[in-house]
């Protein structure tokens, strides 16, 4: 595996576990909205033209975010 993978790299329907964040300011926002390290995320849907994307966090609720925002979430 090369380097790290982030949520924007996920394929539709693929799940991963949040490891860390690479953007400090964005990470605060995401943490507050419930994206915690150790939480499972699944890429649920991709908007037309590939952006924004919808991810399911912790199996229970859905967040929509832009690709560059999703790229700040590093997954295992």
């Amino acid at each position, binding site marked *: 595996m090369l380097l790290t993978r982030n949520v924007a790299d996920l394929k539709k329907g693929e799940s991963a576990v949040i490891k860390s964040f690479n953007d400090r300011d964005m990470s605060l926002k*995401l943490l507050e909205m419930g994206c915690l390290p150790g939480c499972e995320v699944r890429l649920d849907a991709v908007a037309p*033209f590939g952006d924004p994307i*919808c991810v399911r966090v912790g199996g*229970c*609720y859905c967040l*929509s975010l832009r690709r560059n925002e999703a790229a700040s979430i590093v997954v295992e």
Partner: protein
Amino acid sequence: MKPAPRKIALIGNPNSGKSTLFNQLTGLRQKTGNFPGVTVEKKTGTLRFSVSADDSASGDTLTLAEATLIDLPGIYSIYPKSRDEQVAVDILANPQHSDHPDAVVVVADASNLQRNLLLFTQIADLGLPTVLALNMLDVADSMKLKVNAVQLAMQLQVPVVKINARTGEGIDRLREAIQSVKMTDSLVSAYFLDPAEKQLDIIQAVKKEYQLDNNYLALQYICQHDSFTFLNQGQREQLDGLIAKHNFDKTDFLAYETITRYERLRPLVQKAVTTQGDSEQPAWTRRLDRVLLHPFWGYVAFLFVLLIIFQAVFAWAEYPMDWIDQATANAIQWTKYALPQGVLNDMLTDGLMAGIGGVIIFIPQIAFLFGLVGLLEESGYMARVMVIMDKLMRKFGLNGRSVVPLISGVACAVPAIMTTRSINNPYERLLTILVTPLMSCSARLPIYTILIALVVPDEAVLGILNLQGLVLLGLYLLGLIGALGSAWLFSIFVPRREPSYFILEMPTYKWPRWSHLGITMYDSVKSFVLEAGKIIVAISIILWVLASYGPGDSMERAEEQTLQEMANAAPQVREAAVASAQLETSYAGRFGKFIEPAIAPLGYDWKIGIALITSFAAREVFVGTMSTIYSIGGEASEDAVTIRERLQKERNPQTGGPMYTPAVSFSLLMFYVFAMMCMSTLAIVYRETHGWKWPMVQLVYTMVLAYVSAWATFQLLS
């Protein structure tokens, strides 16, 4: 002496059902205003309690029959991400603030309890008396989650009430809980997370300096002093000094705080919530999303929704608008003859009543539009529209959330600008407000129709398409291109203050509550009539004065002279000629003559100049003014054909040819596509941006755009 009613703040995550609960608790007893000093809408309402005699005996509980309920902007945490959210925190952290609550009701979505409780623990740590309202238990139920409220209340040490904000279930128990909340001091016995655990020195220093007794509040001084309105510059610099001295890293600490709060919440939530099987969002939400977010079917569904909105605003709203129009005309007519003739009568009828009529005519469109937009919002579909449109809108400096106002702008810019409130980034909201009036609204339709009919032949193109219809469609497209292009232009020149982000929680689909839609419609109509209405009426009266009076006795002389000249004409023709001559000599007429040199390059004469000025009240006035100026009968005729015939006959005094050549007509069309000829829109922009700066920028910008395009069109075609 009766003490002032207690203030209760309602707070919670976006999509937690907070607004629904607010409506449920206050009904129609609400007021929409602004938080002092900031441009954030504030909703307050009266909360009624049923008081029994022995209740009112005890001293330290809420025993008043009424309390003021304040709806604070939805937030995920106490650290704000937009200026709307700042207001909430500014109020909570400042006991001197006029809206500082005596107690807080935290609304939590039970289907996502851990995240919703994050905010709750922060509010509780601030030392505010708190009641926890557990909402959306039905959603939790469908996700096979069982929430034990008693367990939760014991662990959190606060009253916990299970409610269903949509059906009203549990609302009475919530009222009782609010009523009996202990109004003790803000001393916290046990912090959920004590910032002094990690940052003892700086917390101690700040507490001593500002005489605070709450560690968490002291932390807020450290983290948020730049946005707290109650601190002055000296205090901010002093706090900056403390931060530097103690090497405090804000981002690190906030990340630590959030993660630790979640860690401490996890066992607590695990105890109170029992999972029965696999928890997932309701299956139908996932199924609907598969269609509504689909790259193809998503857009088809969106277009279908658009069609229904257009149908409602153009076709269905027409009937009530016709009734209002007719009723206003009848009322004016009746008043005119019922009261003694004179200046007062004219001012009352032609000025004031016509002005009020111009306001209330918008009510059906506003009600329909807000009802439908509210329906889309309540059902959860709006979030999906924003998702599928975000990428496109972003290219122009806008946000997925800008779609709704732009669509609504085709009906009327006034309600459209009111819907920009849902855009939480202030910069993108401003951009949207600035360009929405460029969308061709329904008031431009009569002007388009008349001028197109004048110069575009009514013939078929390619066998099936009508040339006039194509030109009309072209004008609407031009408006859309103008709006998006201008947004792009503004985004280059207006500096962006906050970074754009689009993290949005996707709510589950829900059936809307009709009573809440009713309240939304009522509320938007009320605030439009009261706020924008005042300004529109004032301008109408000013315009009436300008069109009815001239300097000195010029009006009388114009009347006499015309009467002499036309002594042999039929009384009706004579009356019309008098009206026309008087208009020419009135202040408005003089102003038309005055601006003639400025509009001559566009191909217009002073008569069109008057129409340009009067149509500033509202574009539809253009047709009425034209008919007055070209004096078809004594009063404005609604018969477009006659106006058209008259316009066709109008000669250009210099060339002797027809006045309304294709060059002049297309120049006028261009002008009306871009020009912001609408008092109501300026008034609403003033109201929504809280100042004259942006309405003026918008006015000048659209006028320049209109002037240049009209000039270029005229020069190219003539």
